[in-house]
């Protein structure tokens, strides 16, 4: 920033001041464009205005209810506080600018107890006291006015000999206008985040249960990676002796499949209440989905894992349809897809029973992993089987991590479908780390 040296001609000083004002405005615009987070946006604004333009600043912003005002500012602006909107009734100047949107410039006499001084602009005792300690000469109250509504206010103070000129006030109004636009966008973003986070919680994959005698692990990367949700889904529920494990995929583009995925997950749970047999579960689930989401294609694998009384051995009954692959990974490194009877209709359900011993893994993947495409072509089933063989005997968690790494490195930044693998490891009873 250009600073005139003492003794420079008046014209140069005025020019430098004008440049500073212009820089301030553009700095506020570009800085606030960098974040959609209200708190970070406010902190940046206060940081910029307090660097040179003002000696102290405070910002109030209506919260999403419109009934409370979040207050930021003072010596440590990270300490946020809030007040009821009705408390502004005691602040005559603030109330006026919130109602009219008009700027309030006050020449402060600190010791004057009338409500037109700092008391009328700063609606919080600690912040007011802090401001008074500075013994400011001028206080400028600006409305944060955007899209026809006042969403908050900005209060700036300057010390003696540095009062706000008419041009300073104009620059501050421009700062407030641009800040209001950014903060309003951040408010809208927050409102959407609040709305969607509740949905996301329901759509996100559940935490896998800790089950004596078995270890469960999953790796899941949604096609819309930044959103963490998609059309592939998994679940595990039941008792340690009779556990249901589910892995499925709703065909369709990314996030739009997520509601059908949660429907499918819930349908499996409901079906399994009546019978844990894979044919019953898949049949009842297909019926339910046909009624609820008739146009959606769902691939599904349901495995009923029954642990032997002493642990170390399990019988797994598997039912599957569509593009989902159960694979058996033996501790000896032998890896083979679970064999099912050949069916003419790929979406018809087929069934198999396998026996697993301690250390064996049942790996179930949806179509996204073998179908993943990178610069070297398709990931493919062969590569998946080779990788699983290399990690045989290392455990469910290790294989899950290694598989995720191998697939994501393979696609090398390319777009992908949902990538899901669910792994069940047969372990000894009592080992539940």
């Amino acid at each position, binding site marked *: 920033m250009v600073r005139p040296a003492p003794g420079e001609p008046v014209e140069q000083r005025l020019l430098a001041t004008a440049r500073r004002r212009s820089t301030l405005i553009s700095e506020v615009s570009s800085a606030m464009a960098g974040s959609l*987070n209200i708190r970070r946006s406010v902190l940046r604004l206060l940081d910029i205005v307090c660097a040179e333009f003002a000696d102290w600043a405070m910002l109030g912003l209506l919260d999403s209810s419109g009934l409370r005002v979040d207050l930021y500012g003072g010596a440590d602006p990270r300490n946020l506080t809030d007040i009821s909107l009705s408390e502004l009734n005691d602040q005559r100047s603030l109330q006026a600018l919130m109602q009219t949107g008009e700027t309030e410039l006050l020449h402060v006499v600190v010791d004057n107890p009338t409500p037109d001084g700092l008391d009328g602009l700063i609606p919080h005792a600690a912040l007011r006291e802090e401001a008074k300690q500075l013994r400011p000469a001028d206080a400028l109250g600006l409305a944060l006015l955007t899209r026809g509504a006042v969403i908050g206010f900005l209060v700036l103070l300057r010390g003696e000999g540095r009062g706000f000129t008419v041009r300073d006030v104009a620059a501050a109004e421009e700062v407030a206008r641009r800040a209001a636009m950014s903060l309003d966008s951040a408010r809208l973003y927050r409102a959407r985040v609040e709305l969607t986070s509740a949905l996301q919680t329901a759509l996100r994959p559940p935490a896998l249960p800790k089950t004596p005698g078995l270890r469960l692990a999953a790796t899941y990367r949604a096609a819309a990676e930044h959103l963490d949700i998609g059309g592939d889904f998994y679940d595990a529920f039941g008792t340690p002796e009779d556990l249901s494990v589910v892995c499925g995929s709703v065909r369709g583009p990314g996030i739009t499949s997520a509601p059908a995925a949660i429907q499918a997950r819930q349908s499996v749970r409901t079906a399994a209440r009546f019978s844990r047999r894979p044919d019953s579960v898949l049949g009842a689930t297909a019926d339910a989905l046909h009624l609820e989401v008739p146009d959606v294609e769902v691939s599904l694998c349901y495995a009923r894992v029954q642990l032997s009384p002493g642990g170390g051995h399990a019988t797994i009954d598997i039912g599957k349809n569509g593009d989902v692959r159960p694979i058996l990974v033996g501790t000896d490194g032998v890896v083979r897809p679970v064999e099912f009877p050949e069916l003419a209709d790929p979406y018809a359900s087929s069934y198999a029973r396998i026996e697993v011993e301690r250390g064996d893994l049942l790996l179930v993947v949806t179509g996204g992993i073998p179908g993943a495409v990178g610069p070297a072509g398709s990931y493919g089933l062969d590569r998946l089987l080779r990788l699983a063989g290399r990690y045989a005997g290392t455990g469910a968690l290790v294989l899950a991590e290694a598989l*995720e790494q191998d697939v994501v490195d393979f696609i090398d930044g390319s777009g992908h479908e949902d990538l899901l693998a669910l792994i069940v490891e047969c372990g000894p009873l009592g080992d539940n780390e």
Partner: protein
Amino acid sequence: MGPVTAVAPADVEEFADAVTAMDAAAGRAVVGRLLADGADPVGLIDQVIVPSQREVGLRWQQGEWSVAQQHAATEVALAAADEVRRQLPPMARRRGHVLLACAEREWHALPVTLIGLAIRAAGWETTVLGAGVSPLRLGRYLHELGPDATAISCSVLAGLPTSRRFIEASSAAGVPTVVGGAAFGQDARRADALGATAWASSARGAIHALEGLPLVVPPVGNLPRELAAELAALREQHPSMLMTIGARWQPFGAQPPEPRYPDSPAEVARDCIDQTLHAVSAALLTDDPTVLTETRAWVTAVLAARGVGSAPERAGELVTLLGALMREYPRADALLSEQW
């Protein structure tokens, strides 16, 4: 909480034994006992868990363990980290919120997990995104959480370019960054070059760095246009260079796979080429040529540990082949000519 007790060398050894045996339950038990005896969680992370992981890395380098065994041993440390998390007392005060992540191509989730625990133990709220995080995902969390800082862990050179993008995204939102991990080297030079606000070499160092961070930072400047273009070209050509050099550089010659070396010669050679290619980009990005000398020494050590005769010469051949491919990349070419 009672008085903090120091960790004894015997405890360190006991935990290292659990890692060697790949016994997660034993590792968890050691850590659980130390915490119950009053060990400081941060000291336990820096003095017990982290050193054991260095040993894991060395065992791969020395050809004793396969990558799969490395993964399995790391699970012991993750189980120990889980025990630390389980025993952390409820947060008495909230000093701020820290977002922690590893960039794309960085798959070592353990360091960021451990740093997250240490930071939480020091009173910071944490959100740990884990390994292999895309800039888009990080950006979403920056906007949603509005953290006080972003902590970025990077152990491999391949993760530095996206780490830089994390720094750009954070600073664009005014959020300061603390970086650390083996890829950032032994001092703050590489962190400074990437525009990070602070660098830390340990869990305790990360806590200290957080305490000194500014509330708001300005956006980091763009990389010089020519440098950015060259880095992008190197990134794009990485797969084909990997194949080209792989076809010509065969340090193991006709040597058949030996059972005592768990990873195949082809896999090891590929890793060496991949690391060396990433080292060139990392050296350009960080303006730190020591990346190249360190990588050459690493390649030599990896080959020598697997019985390759004249390992330094074989590493030299790799550099020569690489140099021939770098003629079209003026900055990389100059760097290689000067340093190698």
